[in-house]
């Protein structure tokens, strides 16, 4: 979807007198939309510069893209020579911390027990991607809300006021787990490897899948977007391991 917006903006901005270089992530869309200058990078979706923590590689991408500015006419569409694929089919294997509070629901306890790992990533990075609508300290509580939803509690009685809040909470939970996983394995995972771990191997992954099933017939009803904002499409056909 992003490539459509990137290519549209390239046309609009170029017409306004700006020179643009786009890094589309969808070759077919770039071919159809013909932005003035595009470097198609077949990298994992979500990583348009290719490799995190690899400044030299990122510079190579930018240098290649900026070289398109020397072309006398356009549109020009080139392919970056290196291809990087996602690894959704190789889920991370994370050594899980011990139970924290066996009296709590398994998913809530799991989320709480991952807090030290998340803290390690937070300290190492000096920043976090958690916090769209839920701070890290509240993630176990948010998981608890989805446990209740999966057990039949209406979503608007489980602490949510809007669809957007519901969906962004899922995103914060996912990010919290993925940032914790980065500390558990002590490296930056290949693209989608942590996502597959969350949705296929964890208690919270089971809860999010169960909550999605409950919400498909929710009262008050949710928009069809619920089918896209709880479980990534890449995980929809996968059984839990």
């Amino acid at each position, binding site marked *: 979807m992003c490539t459509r917006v990137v290519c549209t903006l390239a*046309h609009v*901005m*170029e017409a306004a007198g700006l020179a643009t270089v786009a890094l589309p992530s969808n070759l077919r869309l770039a071919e159809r939309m013909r932005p003035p200058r595009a470097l198609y990078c077949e990298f*994992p979706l979500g990583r348009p510069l290719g490799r995190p923590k690899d400044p030299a590689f990122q510079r190579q991408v930018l240098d290649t893209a900026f070289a398109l500015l020397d072309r006398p006419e*356009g549109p020009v569409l080139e392919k970056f020579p290196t291809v990087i694929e996602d690894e959704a089919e190789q889920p991370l294997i994370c050594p899980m911390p011990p139970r924290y509070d066996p009296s709590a629901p398994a998913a809530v306890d799991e989320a709480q027990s991952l807090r030290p790992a998340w803290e390690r990533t937070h300290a190492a990075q000096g920043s976090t*991607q958690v916090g769209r609508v839920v701070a890290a300290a509240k993630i176990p509580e948010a998981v608890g809300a989805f446990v209740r939803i999966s057990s039949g509690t209406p979503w608007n009685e489980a602490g949510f006021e809007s669809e957007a809040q519901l969906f962004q909470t899922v*995103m914060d939970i996912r990010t919290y787990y993925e940032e914790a996983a980065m500390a558990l394995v002590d490296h930056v995972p290949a693209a989608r490897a942590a996502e597959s771990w969350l949705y296929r191997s964890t208690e919270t992954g089971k809860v999010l899948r169960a909550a999605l099933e409950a919400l498909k017939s929710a009262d008050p009803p949710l928009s069809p977007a619920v089918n896209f904002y709880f479980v990534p*499409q890449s995980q929809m056909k996968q059984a839990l391991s």
Partner: protein
Amino acid sequence: MADQELRDAIAEMPFPELGPAAFTRPPSLSEAVVAIVTTAGLMRPGEKSWEGGDSSFRVFDRAERDLIVGHVSLNFDRTGVAADRNVVYPIDRLEEMAGEGVIGSVSRRHMSFMGALGDLSTVFTDSGPAAAKMLKDDGVDVVVLTPV
């Protein structure tokens, strides 16, 4: 290969009638002011989160680093940007390139849209041109556009 299935699923989506591509000749890169425009749905912690269908854009100062990818889609990797913002928003790379004289300078402001949009008409006719005008007013010459 999950990504390729997603690419294929949206490859034939419609888009606005764009007309012939304009083509602006920039100054020499070593003299150009460069800005980043991403569709990652960047936001500051605590800011109102993005919602699906939001065609607006947000503006970030050159020095800002504490930014969250607030894009509403679950369908892309998040660990890369959690480890290194530059994999989506290459602001530190631009600063290095400016320091080396490869680019003229880094724009004082950068922008984010949020790419989960079915209807692109507002971006084409309203928010896109408004963003372009703001960048032009800031003296920007070159824009690098990154999706997620």
